[in-house]
């Protein structure tokens, strides 16, 4: 069988080094290697993007690129092509670093044996091929697992629907009243059905965690409200077990930047878990306070008087399908709750950890960033822009033909709207603010832009055009309009610190936003 000619791209600006490399291939069978030589990174990127290259030899010092950056560029231009770094003796450390950026290997100039180079290239190509194959198999396996989970949870939902329907029909007395004992037993059925439902949802969610599909929509929200919700929801379960469930919340806590539904979910998972692992007559307490170690976050703590977690297991409890195998506790979960919990906390910019001394209960702590408008607008006010800055607040209103948006539509549309809006903005000059809890008839989206009235007008036009062409909004019968309001030019006083300046600007922006929100609420009664 005739061997394929391997296409080698040499990116090297030193003609002497290139000649040496060519000589190293002179001992090879004619037609087994073909060398293409380019001097500049920009040319190489074009060549790589065209395809057909089997392996790249890269010198990290080029006229138009240097160091690790050249590795990234070469890798980005053709991620599937293996890369070998050519380096001088003095930058071996850098070459080793390049391995973490996608390079397969590195060779030190002047130390390459002539016979070794072609062999090294063949090995690198083979190694790269095997790696790619393994990655592909892994991707397929993950995909299969997600599809399987999704399918199973779907199939389980239908019969569960029927069970739940008929239990509630009986409990509501539609076919006639029941005696108290019958009622009590059916309540037990319903409780278990609900538990089964939540397990199926966990299964489904976890396939979403794996593929990053879980929706998280952060906004300014109240942590105490979420805690109160969790307490109300699980009070019944706690009482049944004779557990005292209580909340201890520091007064006047600032709002947090989190998805309210996800925040409730986090607390419910933690509290539910705590109740599960606490014996009768124990206690479960939720605490919330500003985090000592990082005052820009709140810390939420769920502590219980349960059996605690063994020291060797505490590091693993957030892993998928992990079950603390305590024989005294009845397992009633899939071991997915804490895994989902960790994903939700991390994706909202927080951290989660557990602390326990065995036999003395466990404490689960999660941090959630405090909502801070000054911090959010900070990226637009970089140090270089210190003169007088024109600031514009762009407001996009999403409404419906009927004049009122249902919560369902809000939830469905928000993410898509935010993506559309982001596509109309300059990432370093404009900041799309998180969702505000406007509770009005329309949904409002706010953008803070460093621009004057003319720029504001232009942004409005761009947004109007983009949303106007959205088939999705049209089909869902949604209306939209975009307007802007200019703030007075803000000048940072020489004595003012950046924090104070941002605070002052944020206050003005907040006033404008409140104004916009309340005008909508009044307009619609």
């Amino acid at each position, binding site marked *: 069988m005739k061997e394929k000619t391997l296409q080698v791209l040499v990116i090297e600006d030193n003609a002497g080094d290139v000649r040496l490399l060519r000589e190293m291939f002179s001992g090879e069978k004619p037609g087994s290697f073909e060398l293409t030589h380019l001097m500049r990174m920009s040319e190489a990127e074009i060549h790589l993007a065209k395809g057909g290259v089997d392996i790249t030899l890269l010198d990290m010092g080029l006229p138009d690129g240097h160091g690790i950056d050249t590795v990234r560029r070469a890798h980005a231009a053709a991620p599937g092509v293996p890369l070998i770094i050519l380096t001088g003796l003095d930058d071996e450390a850098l070459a080793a670093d390049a391995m973490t950026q996608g390079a397969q290997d590195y060779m030190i100039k002047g130390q390459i044996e002539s016979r070794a180079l072609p062999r090294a290239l063949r090995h690198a190509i083979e190694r790269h091929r095997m790696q790619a194959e393994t990655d592909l198999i892994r991707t397929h396996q993950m995909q299969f697992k997600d599809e399987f989970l*999704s399918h199973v*949870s*779907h*199939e389980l*939902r*239908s019969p*569960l*629907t*029927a*069970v*739940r*329907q*008929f*239990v*509630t*029909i009986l*409990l*509501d007395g*539609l*076919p006639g009243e029941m005696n108290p004992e019958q009622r009590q037993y059916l*309540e037990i059925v*319903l409780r278990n*059905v*609900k538990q089964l*439902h*939540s397990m199926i949802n966990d299964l*489904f969610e976890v396939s979403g965690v794996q593929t990053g*599909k879980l*929706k998280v929509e952060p906004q300014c929200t109240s942590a105490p409200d979420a805690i109160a919700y969790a307490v109300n*929801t*699980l009070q019944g379960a706690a009482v049944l077990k004779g557990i005292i469930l209580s909340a201890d919340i520091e007064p006047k806590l600032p709002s947090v930047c989190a998805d309210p539904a996800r925040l409730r979910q986090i607390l*419910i998972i933690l509290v*539910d878990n705590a109740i599960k692992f606490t014996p009768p007559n124990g206690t479960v307490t939720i605490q919330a306070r500003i985090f000592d170690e990082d005052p820009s976050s709140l810390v939420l703590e769920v502590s219980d008087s349960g059996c605690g977690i063994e020291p060797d297991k505490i590091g693993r409890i957030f892993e998928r399908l992990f079950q603390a195998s305590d024989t005294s506790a009845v397992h009633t979960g899939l071991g997915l709750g804490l895994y989902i919990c960790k994903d939700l906390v991390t994706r909202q910019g927080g951290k989660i950890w557990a602390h326990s001394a065995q036999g003395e209960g466990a404490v689960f702590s999660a941090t959630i960033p405090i909502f801070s408008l000054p911090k959010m607008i900070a990226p637009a006010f970089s140090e270089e822009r210190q003169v007088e800055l024109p600031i514009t607040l762009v407001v996009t209103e999403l409404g419906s033909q009927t004049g009122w948006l*249902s919560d*369902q539509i809000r939830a*469905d549309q928000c993410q898509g709207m935010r993506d559309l809006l982001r596509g109309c903005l300059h990432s370093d000059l404009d900041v799309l603010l998180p969702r505000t809890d406007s509770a009005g008839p329309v949904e409002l989206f706010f953008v803070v832009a460093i621009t004057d009235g003319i720029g504001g007008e232009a942004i409005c036009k761009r947004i109007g055009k983009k949303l106007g062409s959205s088939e*999705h909004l049209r*089909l*869902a019968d949604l209306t939209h309009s975009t307007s802007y309001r200019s703030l007075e030019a803000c000048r940072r006083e020489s004595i003012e610190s950046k924090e104070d300046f941002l605070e002052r600007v944020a206050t003005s922006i907040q006033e404008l936003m409140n104004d916009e929100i309340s005008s909508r609420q009044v307009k619609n009664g």
Partner: protein
Amino acid sequence: MDSRKILIVDDNADIRLGMHLRLKANQYQTFFAADAFSGVAEARKHRPDLIILDLGLPAGDGFTVMERLSQIPVLAVIPIIVVSARDGLGNQKRAYAAGAKAFLQKPVNDDELLAVIRQALGEPAGMKKPTLYDQGSV
């Protein structure tokens, strides 16, 4: 006022019966279909005020039903509530795009279903007969 007519299209007989009992208790008149084809046929025959539609059906699926109904002017105006065990996001978007008024995930909370029905029929929320045991699902 005559009681409003609701067509339930679901291939699971237990679910059809369960919905019927709940809807009857709330003074709605119900009709049934167990597949996509008869879903359209029954809609033609009874001209319901509202359709509760499952997505996974024999002889087509919920989307086929919505597409056919949308081609028949007198039936195209009937509000549709999709109740499905299929996963949210993708199907939800598709259902709304096809003209559904709401998308509910099975297992459905009856309170929620009734609220959505009333909303779709333009009935005041106040006339709701409360269901004591089906609030919230944790």
